[in-house]
């Protein structure tokens, strides 16, 4: 079965973030941090070292 055509250029998830959170992400990237954007929920995981990673959990 043929797979659906993918967009040639993908939207950025940053567009959907509230301005304050988008600012945090851009600042973290500027500081050389990895940014992880995931859903908040019952799932529990931890990534360390925490000072080099910004985790944004979304509802």
């Amino acid at each position, binding site marked *: 079965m043929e797979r659906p055509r993918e967009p040639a250029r993908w939207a950025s998830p940053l567009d959907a973030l509230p301005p304050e959170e988008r600012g945090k992400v851009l600042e973290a990237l*500027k500081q050389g941090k*990895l940014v992880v954007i995931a859903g908040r929920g019952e799932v529990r995981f931890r*990534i360390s070292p925490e000072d*080099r990673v910004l985790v944004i959990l979304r509802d």
Partner: protein
Amino acid sequence: MSYAAQAGSAGPVEAPFFNLVCWYLGKCQFYHITAYYLIPPFFDLTLYWTPEEEDKVQLIFALTFGPPRDLNTGEVVFTDEVGFWHRGRGMKLHWDPLVPSIVNTVYPHVTPATKEDPFVIRFVNRTARTIIMDVSVWVFEYHRRDFEDFLEMVRGFANLFRLLGKAGSPEELAGAIRSLLAR
């Protein structure tokens, strides 16, 4: 580049034996953790992935990937200048560049992660671009006692088939099964 090459992981994520234990026996819970990873330029960092709770084991059984993209342009970027080294229990440290033969696959694992034995991922970006990528980590999560039960079952399967393999004839096989059942 064709659209198929841009597509990311293709195919089903299957783990029938683990499903049996998880759902039929009710010994664990299934989920996947789907997240965007934004990797800044000239980045090199080793990360440790663990369950948050002390008494849990996350058995990572697959990774699936969306295509890596340039955060600023949205352009798909396949390159061996970005990727990750990783290791876990039963898995040697190895390099996974973000190239189609890795990214377009359902990447199988059988890697348990615990607080004291984490899944280790070293992200590397040798380019001047910020790379964004969505990754799903597919997990069966056990309480530690249930994971020990699960390992016991795995040992049972291994021992049974070892026994079957050693039997030289159907009669020996029948004898081996009888002695196993008599234990």
